[in-house]
């Protein structure tokens, strides 16, 4: 159900337009916010546990079933969240107070409003815009501003360096990500997220699902370029030089504590979800079932979308505990000397492919 249908369906109708509008906004926004919060808790638990298993440890286990972080440490993320909420909110005396307070929200809004165009299922999307995928790429740039603001307003050299590094990184990696998206738009001939999903229905030669990643060799490469650039845009390891604990304390987030820090945390996980969701939609068939006609209904669509997206989130966590951090020059040379030429070649290749084969 999209927000337009919701506005038409609401009983207040056109008599109280402002109330209708506000209700529709709340009905759409509140579940998304709750979803991000719950998903972040699960992802934090997953991150702790997966990292432990990869290091051949058990991770948080809790002492029995009591209040000690529950069985298998299940209450660990809840305890973490409570800790963050109850912590003292410190604003450094030398900081620029207004911008310091504003920065976490700018970052969070950038991640939050992207959810408006994510297609969770055949009928489960807040707004199926004409320019859906482009909209997500566009509003992603808001979080860059937030991180720069955080780095600047903290009035701390580590924060500033973190903010600058982050901005340079995100702005650079937006280019290969955008170019990869262009190469798939050339196939689907639409920017709407639902249109891209519908393009991927059916099968190739009756065996493979008709996903864009399998459509041609160029889109296969484009998926990897997009996903890796997405990891870089989330500032996740191996691209976490903006945070770089060993050099910059915590980068742009050094001076933040309590709830404000929690918002940065939340938006990092939300961004991971958005990048994975866009990759899943644009390359892995979105809500389409892997086997055509197998559990292929609107309800199961949500399951397939979530399954694909959360698998990609898992891959991101896997990256974090597998690869060491890149140096700044390596990061930039990969972006400009490898990803950029290859994504340009992809556009060319997809063009030739759709002329000759498609």
């Amino acid at each position, binding site marked *: 159900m999209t927000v337009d249908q919701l506005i038409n369906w609401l009983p207040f109708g056109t008599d109280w337009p402002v109330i209708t*509008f506000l209700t529709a906004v709340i009905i759409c926004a509140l579940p998304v916010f709750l979803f991000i919060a719950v998903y972040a808790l699960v992802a934090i638990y997953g991150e702790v546990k997966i990292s432990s298993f990869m290091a051949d440890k058990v991770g948080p286990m809790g002492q029995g079933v009591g209040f000690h972080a529950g069985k298998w440490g299940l209450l660990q993320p809840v305890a973490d969240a409570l800790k963050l909420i109850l912590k003292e909110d410190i604003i450094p005396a030398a900081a620029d107070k207004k911008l310091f307070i504003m920065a976490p929200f700018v970052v969070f809004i950038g991640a939050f409003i992207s959810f408006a165009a994510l297609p969770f299922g055949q009928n489960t999307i807040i707004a199926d815009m004409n320019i859906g995928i482009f909209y997500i790429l566009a509003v992603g740039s808001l979080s860059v501003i937030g991180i720069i603001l955080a780095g600047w307003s903290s009035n701390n050299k580590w924060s500033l360096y973190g903010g*600058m590094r982050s901005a340079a990184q995100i702005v650079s990696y937006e280019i290969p990500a955008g170019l990869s998206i262009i190469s798939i738009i050339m196939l689907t001939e639409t920017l709407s997220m639902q249109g891209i999903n519908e393009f991927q229905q059916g099968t190739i030669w009756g065996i493979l699902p008709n996903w864009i990643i399998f459509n041609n060799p160029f889109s296969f490469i484009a998926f990897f370029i997009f996903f890796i650039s997405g990891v870089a845009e989330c500032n996740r390891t191996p691209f976490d030089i903006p945070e770089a604990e060993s050099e910059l304390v915590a980068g742009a987030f050094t001076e933040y504590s309590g709830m404000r820090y929690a918002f940065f945390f939340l938006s990092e996980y939300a961004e991971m979800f958005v990048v994975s969701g866009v990759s899943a939609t644009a390359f892995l068939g979105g809500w389409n079932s892997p086997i055509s006609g197998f559990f292929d209904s609107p309800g199961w669509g949500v399951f397939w979308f979530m399954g694909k997206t959360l698998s990609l989130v898992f891959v991101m966590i896997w990256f974090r505990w597998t690869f060491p951090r890149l140096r700044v020059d390596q990061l930039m040379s990969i972006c400009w000397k490898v990803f950029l030429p290859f994504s340009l070649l992809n556009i060319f290749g997809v063009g030739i492919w759709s002329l000759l084969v498609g």
Partner: protein
Amino acid sequence: MIVDAAFWFIVVLTLGSALTVVLNEKLIYSAIALLFTLFGMAALYVFLWADFLAGVQVVIYVGGILVLIIFGIMLTNRITSVNISHTSVQKGIGGMVVLGILFVLGVMILNTPWLQTEFVEPVQTTATIGTLLMMEYLLPFEVASLLLLAALMGAAMLSRRDE
């Protein structure tokens, strides 16, 4: 009704933040106010059914130019002080010039026969732009890309170290 309320809200937001850009004395605050101005303008494009243009506005101005401006502010020599400010000089003459421009623009706005169209949603917005760019305006499009290429090469040339 909803559309009207939203429209006026956005107009006030855009103009208010644009005034802040000009009047605020702290450079970084001006840059942040510019963020709201640019978003407001993107929203105004949406009212004209130009959703693609709105997206482009956000990508290029917020994601590119505004980041560049903030970068510029951060790279100034007083990097550790947050109190970089800019003040207005020659307010009298400046104000007169502004009023003159306002008068000329106002006359132009009032005298132009504006194109009045129906309030209908176009079926597709991006396809038309693509067709026009590739068929009718191909030459200007290519010339613009040539210009950008030249600018890019010039920037690379200037930023290279002498060896």
